[in-house]
């Protein structure tokens, strides 16, 4: 059998072996160079000794299948793989920066910093889920905040599940594999297909980072792991009083034992972490003590209590399809009531058919950002607040629950780019907006809708009022 020990200076398939940078139970990592690849690279070599954990082999096989198919800024770029028959290895981009594991001595961190890290990781997870992969081992040592771009990169896909490939880990090991403090309850019960398992792990990470304490400790037995189904963690605010209620709301939602209770997608979690003012606070936001014993015991033994099951697990392939973020841009300045009504009808059709869709109502307040007093109108009303009120009034007829709708007044000089920025930053799946019907205005101001149709990285619906409704066009 091949060995994970590679001598420095050895040449392997054109790669020159450099320093060993990590020696783990499952694999060794070496810095490598190659004349044809002008970037920093790592070579991962699995530990395959007789009598070693066979999971090392299988998880290496999984990574060998998954990594070459991944792309984008949130994963290391795949370079090469070596065959098992000769010398198994994987070569991939070495991400500049430290893993979050290096931050552990600094814990607890301020709430805003934890939310910012959480949002970056959630954005990375959304990109991974979009590529049909559930990571299943989200923890500080598997996340690097890139020192060049600042985005979060996920590493180590050895325990991951790919929705379209054979799941070798599942078939080989019916016992759960993962990292005890972060593992979602359904993962403890052997379910590997639900992308929301990663949101649980991220919730546990944020809890740990903001309080300095792991929400469920570090249990070493299956029984200890299963306890998280009914045993709720101490609310973060009990451990650290300055954790804001909105962050406690988000973290405890991530830690819901039933995946249905968590955010439907990583994109929606990232959205909440970057819009604290839009988080709907429930009683758990203000909790300062665990549920009483009687409630916990009931959760444990009551026959109707939640138990993870394969039947209700969601598949990663349909993750984002089931819970899109829909944005609607509403121009409140133009008095075109027909168009505003037509927009509402369209949004209703789009959003009400998808039970987990989230709606973001946008309005662009044009103006000079530097002069603060300009946000007051002639009568001295705060224009920003006035716009928010109008947006809420517009959305009232949609009758959406508060946690599925949010309102945003974007202050910018140019409506088109403000909306485009918003769409990109918040991983919006579908934007709905109205088309100006006045040809004169369109010619003077340019067409915002045209710009968005051309540039938006998502589905765009442009709404016109129907001809029968009158109007000047």
């Amino acid at each position, binding site marked *: 059998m091949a060995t994970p020990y590679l001598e420095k200076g050895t040449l392997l398939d054109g790669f020159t072996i450099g320093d060993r940078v990590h020696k783990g139970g499952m694999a060794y990592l070496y810095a490598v160079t190659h004349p044809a690849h002008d970037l920093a690279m790592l070579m991962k070599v699995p530990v395959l000794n007789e009598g070693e954990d066979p999971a090392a082999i299988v998880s290496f096989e999984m990574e060998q299948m998954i990594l070459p198919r991944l792309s984008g800024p949130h994963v290391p770029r795949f370079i090469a793989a070596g065959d098992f028959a000769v010398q*198994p290895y994987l070569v991939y981009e070495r991400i500049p920066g430290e893993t979050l594991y290096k931050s552990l001595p600094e814990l607890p961190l301020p709430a805003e910093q934890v939310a910012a890290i959480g949002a970056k990781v959630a954005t990375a997870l959304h990109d991974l889920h979009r590529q049909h992969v559930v990571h299943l081992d989200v923890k500080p040592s598997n996340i690097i905040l890139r020192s060049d771009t600042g985005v979060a990169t996920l590493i180590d896909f050895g325990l991951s599940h790919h929705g379209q*490939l*054979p799941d070798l880990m599942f*078939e*080989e090991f019916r016992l759960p594999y993962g990292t005890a403090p972060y593992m979602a309850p359904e993962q403890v019960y052997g379910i590997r297909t639900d992308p929301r398992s990663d949101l649980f792990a991220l919730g546990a990470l944020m809890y740990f980072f903001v309080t300095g304490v792991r929400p469920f400790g570090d249990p070493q037995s299956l029984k200890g792991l299963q306890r998280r189904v009914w045993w709720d963690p101490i609310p973060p605010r009990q451990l650290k009083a300055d954790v804001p209620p909105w962050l406690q709301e988000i973290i405890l939602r991530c830690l819901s034992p039933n995946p249905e209770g968590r955010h439907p997608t990583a994109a929606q979690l990232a959205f909440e972490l970057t819009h604290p003012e839009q988080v709907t606070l429930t009683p758990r936001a203000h909790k300062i003590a665990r549920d009483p014993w009687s409630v916990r015991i009931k959760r444990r033994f009551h026959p109707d209590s939640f138990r993870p099951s394969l039947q209700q697990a969601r598949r990663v392939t349909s993750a984002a399809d089931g819970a899109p973020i829909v944005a609607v841009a509403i121009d409140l300045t133009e008095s075109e009531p027909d168009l505003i009504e037509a927009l509402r009808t369209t949004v209703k059709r789009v959003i009400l058919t998808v039970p987990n869709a989230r709606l973001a109502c946008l309005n662009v307040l044009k103006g000079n950002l530097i002069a603060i007093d300009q946000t007051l109108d002639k009568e001295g009303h705060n224009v920003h607040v006035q716009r928010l009120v109008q947006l809420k009034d517009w959305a009232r007829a949609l009758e959406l629950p508060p946690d599925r709708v949010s309102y945003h007044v974007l202050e910018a000089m140019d409506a088109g780019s403000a909306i485009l920025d918003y769409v990109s930053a918040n991983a919006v799946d579908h934007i709905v907006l109205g088309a100006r019907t006045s040809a004169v205005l369109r010619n003077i101001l340019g067409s915002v809708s045209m710009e968005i149709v051309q540039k938006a990285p998502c589905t765009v619906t442009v709404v016109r009022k129907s001809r029968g409704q009158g109007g000047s066009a």
Partner: protein
Amino acid sequence: MRIALLADIHANLEALQACLADVRARGADRLVFLGDVVGYGADPVACVEIVAEACSTGALAIKGNHDEAAVGPTRFRLNETAEKALRWTEAILGDTHKAFLSGLPMMVGEEGRLYVHASAAHAESYPYVTGLDEAVESLQATKAHVTICGHVHMPALYNLAVTGKIMQHIPIAGTDIPLLSQRRWLAVMGAVGQPRDGNPAAAYGLFDAEKSALTYVRVPYDVEKAQDKIRKAGLPDSLWKRLGVGR
């Protein structure tokens, strides 16, 4: 080298032509027909001629149970519907067609791959690989890295780890699946001419030998036309009905 893998054509000319057009569009260096060119469908003559023509220019064809039964008495039993269709088929096939079918090999191995219609274990009695036990039996009967078969009409992919664990995967069309070298694989192709997995689209496979990657492909075709021909040929109704639902 890219190899197109076509199983269970079953005299469905429309499905075969659609698959071959798709193969040409994607590009393949080699065609392998995995048995059952005839039986059930209304175009046995045209299908045999297409396969025979391909074989004269480098394609490979394996014998299926229907190919065997269409040219004479068999050691195995077929159900009544299949039997009726085969007697109809036998009557319209010419001697050259029959000679071609009876000359087909049961199994062919090349470069770590084994092609067989049903199972590498007891190939001549055509057992169905429908579960883990049958898959293990087939995998144990050969040393090939990848065994490729048809016969079941439902796509599936089995692999056997060095630890002896067998697993089944239901492939998703259009995904290239790496067949890792340290495992052994049994790939069951869906049917070109009579899919039974609930999707009426014709099924075939593409194997990239350099990358050792297998892709299961689905191709929509003119089902109504194929159904119409079966009806007009006077074959049992169930044979055209099932094409519409892929069952």
